[in-house]
């Protein structure tokens, strides 16, 4: 007896493998395999118009095993973390966390469509790990110089305003137990790599 198959086995396998990979990188339980392709996510998304695939489309690509296409999509990088889709998803999929998982893989493999987002996030993380606090001035100054030098003239009054209103510290604040924090992060990095 011949059993009809919707997609060739190699496609189905690639889809399952990639779905598992995304799930393994998700902090909680993604429930991504439950997606019914209803499109509530894209319809709820305030930045969907800037995405090359809607979240629904991206989830279909994941299940079709289109790994390379998903990892070079700008969709997860346009996610605002507003959680509109998460509370509206009838299947209770942790969509924001899935976007984070895809970003994590894309960042590891350097397949992101633009380095502006990963660079900003990377610098933020580096400073938070180093000082134990974020450093608004260091982060934004470096970011604008590197990625948006043309925005700098327009930004000058804003920067001056922050100083005038006493809303920005010049030097980073360091926590006292930096050694403790860094020991925790070193171990966390090892555990993350071993996953």
């Amino acid at each position, binding site marked *: 007896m011949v059993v009809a198959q919707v997609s060739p086995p190699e496609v189905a396998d690639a889809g399952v493998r990639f779905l598992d990979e995304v799930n393994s990188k998700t902090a909680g339980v993604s429930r991504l395999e439950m997606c019914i392709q209803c499109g509530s996510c894209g319809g709820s998304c305030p930045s969907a118009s800037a995405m090359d695939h809607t979240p629904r489309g991206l989830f279909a690509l994941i299940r079709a095993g289109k790994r390379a296409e998903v990892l070079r999509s700008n969709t997860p990088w346009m996610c*605002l973390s507003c959680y509109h889709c998460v509370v509206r998803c009838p299947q209770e999929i942790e969509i924001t966390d899935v976007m984070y998982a895809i970003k994590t893989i894309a960042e590891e493999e350097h397949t992101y469509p633009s380095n502006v987002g990963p660079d900003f996030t990377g610098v933020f993380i580096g400073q938070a790990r180093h000082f134990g606090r974020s450093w608004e001035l260091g982060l934004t100054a470096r970011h604008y110089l590197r990625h948006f030098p043309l925005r700098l003239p327009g930004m000058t009054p804003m920067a001056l305003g922050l100083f005038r209103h006493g809303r920005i510290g010049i030097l980073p604040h360091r926590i006292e137990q930096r050694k403790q924090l860094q020991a925790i992060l070193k171990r*966390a990095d090892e555990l993350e790599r071993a996953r």
Partner: protein
Amino acid sequence: MSSYLYYPGCSMEGSGRSYRESLAGVLEPLDITLEEINDWNCCGATEYVSLSTTPAYAMIARNLAIAAGEKKNGESLVAACSACYLNLAKADHYMGKQPALNARVNDALGAGGLHYDPGTVRVRHLLEVILTDVGLDKVRAAVKQPLTGLKVAPYLGCMVPRPDVNGMTADHDQPKSLDVLLRALGADVVDYPLRTECCGGHMTQIAPKVGLELIRRLVSEAERLEAVMMVTVCPMCQINIDAYQGEMNAMFHTKHKMPIVFFTQLMGVAFGLEPKKVGVGREYTNASKALAKALKAAPELALAAASAPPAPRARPDKRALPMPTMPQTPGMADSEVQE
């Protein structure tokens, strides 16, 4: 007097300074104390959790472990910043639900001599604490200078109502928590439909077109509803709408001038504190004038409201389509029935 453990977050010491100043001013009238946890670290905002799991959650959990160690009488851990609140609540929630994540995070914490059992610390947002524990009656009783006539747009933002890991609200789209608090201060709260829409987060930094369009929507809608200022609970929302309004105006050729202040600042003013003492005036788009104007008119408005005769019931519009009406006199109705 209720006491709480307190996680300020990095913004409170920088761009969100007026949030910190005004919060310090309203604690006494609200009869609460906040005990800042010792040597806390950055929660990683939306940045770290979006590119990593174990290290990002370990960094958040260090704060939870410190809070658990300092907890004496079942105090909750309160955060005023929306992103800090969500990160702390989410880390506690996921560690409780995911044994594998819990094991990895605690393994990492162990390298720093710390440990955290999920569920030990209850993470709450400042607004919810004021509404639930302090209560509106106490807030009303503390008001010395009602904000009568001050037309405000309540802007709650995303991360307090969503994803709501602890199930605090049934309404994730149009919750009225900030509305009722501002109304208790006497303010004229407009029904702002974008109350939980996104300010763009870090998009002003990485994709300005996306971020500025979101700011344009929020500001133009507040203006359309004739609000004189927006009121927020989040340092990220405040700086995006305040500091990037100029760049947004340049991009869309608009001339919006919408001040945005923290809800604690308006509480402070309503409780009789000097606006300057609660950080009013630190905004780019200055809120002082609109506030002063409303406060100046407030006594007259309050007086007029008190002395005015009750408004007559609106008469039906003669031009309107006929509506089914009740018979004018009982007698007539009876005779009609008999016929």
